[in-house]
Structure formats: structure tokens, C-alpha cells
């Protein structure tokens, strides 16, 4: 049995704990982290918007006015993803596979879940009340398109049932 745990900054411990609680002992656990392109791309764009600075082609050492901060962000992103997976593997405390992907986050998750028996992920929306808004766009996409069973967890203790608004009045 193959279990994929999709880990995101800030909410990943809940996913790891869910794997520990629910995955069978003989399951192959894959810890997945996906780096989105948009944060480095914003830095690339801001740099390109600096008109007239004569940015040379090719890489320049960090700190030089010609060094694109977006490149630096991409490199740092790789390091921090590895650090997150290390911390998660330590918390899991059993053998696992680490998988780093980059690209459109929600699509990479769905692609990684192909052939798996379980996808574990955490809600990433408004978590102050129960309801559909507790899923952000990425998790919504993954839940809707997952080609396997899904285990959806709350990163923190779930809100009380009372956070559900009362049903609308019955209409005749």
C-alpha cells in the first residue's frame, strides 16, 4: 500500500500525525512537497521591472546589482523544501520516501497521487469555522481531482459544530 502525504509549510505536522495514526505499518509512505513557481516569479518580475539597470545575461554572484533575486529564491526554495521533509521524516519516525516536486502545486499533487492508495492532506483555507471555505483553491482542486481515496485533516483542532450557520428557513 502506498500512502502519499502532501506537506505544506505551516500545516504539515497534522498530515504527518495523520499518517502515523491511520497508515498501516506495512504501507510505503511518501512525503511530498511541491514548490510553486509564483514566489520566485514575482521576484523575477520585480527585477525585470527595474528599467535601465543593464542586467547582464547569465548568473551573477549574490549581492551584485545584476544578480536576479528570483534565481536566489529558487535555490533557497530547494533548500527549505529539503529541510521541511527532513523535519517531517523525523516526526514520522519510520522509513519513508521523500519526494520534491516543482510546478503548478495542485496539479503536481494530483499527478503524484496516481497509483497511490491514500492521499493525506490538510485544510488550507479559513479554518475558523466548519464549512467549504476551510479548503483553499489548491486543496479544493486536489480533493476534487484525486485519483485515489483522500484523508483530509484539520491542521489544528477542528472548530465546534456551532460554527455552522443555522439552516435557511423552509420555503413553501
Amino acid at each position, binding site marked *: 500500500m502506498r500512502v502519499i502525504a502532501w506537506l505544506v509549510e*505551516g500545516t504539515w505536522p497534522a498530515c504527518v500525525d495523520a499518517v502515523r495514526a491511520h497508515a498501516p505499518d506495512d504501507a510505503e509512505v511518501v512525503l511530498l512537497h511541491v514548490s510553486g513557481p509564483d514566489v520566485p516569479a514575482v521576484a523575477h518580475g520585480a527585477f525585470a521591472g527595474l528599467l535601465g539597470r543593464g542586467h547582464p545575461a547569465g548568473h551573477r554572484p549574490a549581492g551584485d546589482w545584476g544578480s536576479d533575486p528570483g534565481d536566489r529564491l529558487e535555490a533557497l526554495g530547494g533548500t527549505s523544501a529539503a529541510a521541511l521533509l527532513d523535519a517531517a521524516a523525523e516526526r514520522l519516525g519510520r522509513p519513508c520516501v521523500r519526494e520534491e516536486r516543482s510546478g503548478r502545486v495542485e496539479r503536481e499533487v494530483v499527478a503524484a497521487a496516481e497509483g497511490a492508495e491514500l492521499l493525506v492532506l490538510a485544510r488550507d483555507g479559513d479554518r475558523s469555522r466548519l464549512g467549504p471555505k476551510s479548503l483553499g483553491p489548491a486543496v479544493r482542486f486536489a480533493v476534487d481531482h484525486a485519483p485515489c481515496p483522500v484523508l483530509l485533516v484539520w491542521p489544528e483542532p477542528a472548530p465546534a459544530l456551532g460554527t455552522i450557520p443555522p439552516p435557511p428557513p423552509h420555503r413553501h
Partner: protein
Amino acid sequence: MLAWAVVRPFGWPEAVTAVPAAGIAVATGAISLDHARAEAERLGPVVGFLAAVLVLAHFCDVEGLFQACGAWTARWAGGRPVRLLTAVFALASAITAVLSLDATIVLLTPVVFATAARTGVRPKPHVYACTHLSNTASLLLPVSNLTNLLAFAASGLSFTRFAALMALPWLAAIGAEYLVFRRFFARDLAAAAPADRDTGEAPRLPLFALVTVGCTLAGFVVASAFGVEPAWVAAAGALVLAGRALARRKATPLSVVRAAAPAFLAFVLALGIVVRAVVDNGLADVLGHLVPSGTGLPALLGIAALAALLANLINNLPAVLVLLPLAAPVGPGAVLAVLLGVNIGPNLTYAGSLATLLWRRIVQQHEHDVDLGEFTRLGLLAVPSSLAVAVVALWGSLQVL
């Protein structure tokens, strides 16, 4: 020439065409030699000032100032995303105001990303804040943005008066951005990281760099009181930091020259002459009808909106050069309103202007790109609100001061 500056075939510096273009403008009589000389004389101190600030920022980085800032914010925020955002806002606003927007984009953004990643916080709101603040927080001082330097030379204001008039708009615009960010990124900011991540060792205090920057800022105030060109003060500060780096063999004469970005300086000078030629040859008549006269609140709002629109279409450098000759006769209020527009406006597109954005989309330099819809939604919320409150604050400052 603008097209070249955006497209930049073969990765050549923009100055490669800008300088010959300025030469042609003079040679063909599109601009009289007197006007060209006047423009060059006006821009000379601006270019010198710019070079000094770039050198200052570069050697602050060499001294470890930005690394130390990252470590301080990490310790203060302690893995709490909202606190980190507040710290990033304070830091990026201060660095943009004092060491220019180039420093925030090139030097601070990677540090902020690393800080967020190290403390387990989602980096997106913080990196977006850096890019937005590099524009919005560049209102305060003439050194914060090249557009300010150009306007400063044309407005006839003293350094302190410029800063005094812009202080309230600066704070108002940053405040508006902060509220928009808190709301827009509420979900990302609610994802609290596990608290046991290590926040790094206590950073070494880069005392020398801090003292030099502090003295340079104080020097600006003193110099403008005595009528001395503030560019000299900036040059002194830059020389102190560069000299120290040279003495400690952390820099070579070549790296000091590189830090001053000579190709950029040549580009600014040439762009000024070419734009002057275009304005002399009819653009002034066309835009003259569009620029509202008067310094009432509606006129200031109109000027700022026009400037923001133009900055988004072409880029804020040419936009400010086009609008300055038209706004300068109206008075300092109009010049500062132009600055609010051209500095805050570019946040609408993540690449500063439609021209750059379109070109980037065409060549697809990067395999993946920004979620354009999301960034534009953020810009549509942040730009009008921060621009409006900044103009009202400017109007208020003009009434009081």
C-alpha cells in the same frame, strides 16, 4: 529606445542604445545643444547621488546588514506569520526609504524569503510585500527612488522639506498596503508553523554600516539646511563604507565601480536627453491638455491617477520624465502628486509596467509564471486605496506645512 530597453536583445545593457539615441537627438537638432546641456547639468547631480546610494547599499550588504536584519526579524517574529509580516513591512519600508528600491528588490527579498522559510512560515505574503513596498515605500526621501531624484531636482524643494511633505503620504500608503495584505493573505497568515524551528544564532551587529547610514541621513538634513548639495553627503557615506571594504580587502576598485552601476547611470542621462527631445517636439502640447492645473485635492488626485496610468503603460522612469516638465510650473504639490502616481502605480503589474509584462509573456523567459489573476487582484485592491489615501495625506501636508 524604450522598446530596446524592455526587449534587450543579446542581454546588452540598455545604455548601448540609449547613449547613441541621445547623440542622434542632439545631432539631428531634435533637441538644441543648449537644452541638452541644461538637461545634462540638471541630471548630473542626480546621477551622482544615485551612484552614491547604490554604492552605500552594496557595501551595507557586504557588511552583513541585510543578513542581520533577517536574523532580527526571525527572532522577533518567532514563527508567527502575522508578526513576521509586520516586521517585513517595517524593514522593507525603512530599507526602501533609505537605501533605495533596488536594495529592497535585489538584496532584501532573498533574505526575507530565507527568513520565512527558515522559521517555517509560508513565504508568499512576505515576498509579495517586499515587491509592493519597494514601490509604495519609496515615497519618503529623494534617494528612495530614481523617480524621486529626478523630481527632486526639478521641484526646487530642499531635502528636508521634501521628506517632511512626503512623510504623511508615505505612512498612509504603507498603512493602506498593510491592511490590504492582512486581508488578502489571511489564509496564508493563519497557517502557524511549529514553534520549535530554530531561529538562528544572534546576529553580529553591523555597527559600522548602521552608524555610517545614520550619519549620512543626519548629514542630508544638515547639508540641506546649509544649502549644500545632498549628493555630496551620500558620496561621503559611500566612500567611508567602500574605503573600509577596500582597506579590509573585501572589495577591489573594480567592484566599487561595479557597485555604482555605470551602465545604469549612462542610461539615466541619455534617457533624460531623449525624453526632453520628445517633449520639446510636441508631446508637451498633447499632455499639456491632460494635466490638471491647480493644487486642490481634485487636481492632485487627477495628476496622481494620470501618472499612475502612464507609469503602468510605459514604465515609471520615462513617465516621470514626461510629466515633470508639465507639473513643475504648477508647483511642488503637483510634482509630488506625480511621484505618488509613478511610485505606487507600478504595483498593478508585477513587472512594473505593461510593456515589460507583455514582453516577458511573449518570450516566456521562465517556464512557469506568476498567477497573473491573483497578483492583479492584489494590485487592484492595493494601488487605488494606497494612492487615494496618499494623495489626501499629501494634500493635508501641503495645507499644514
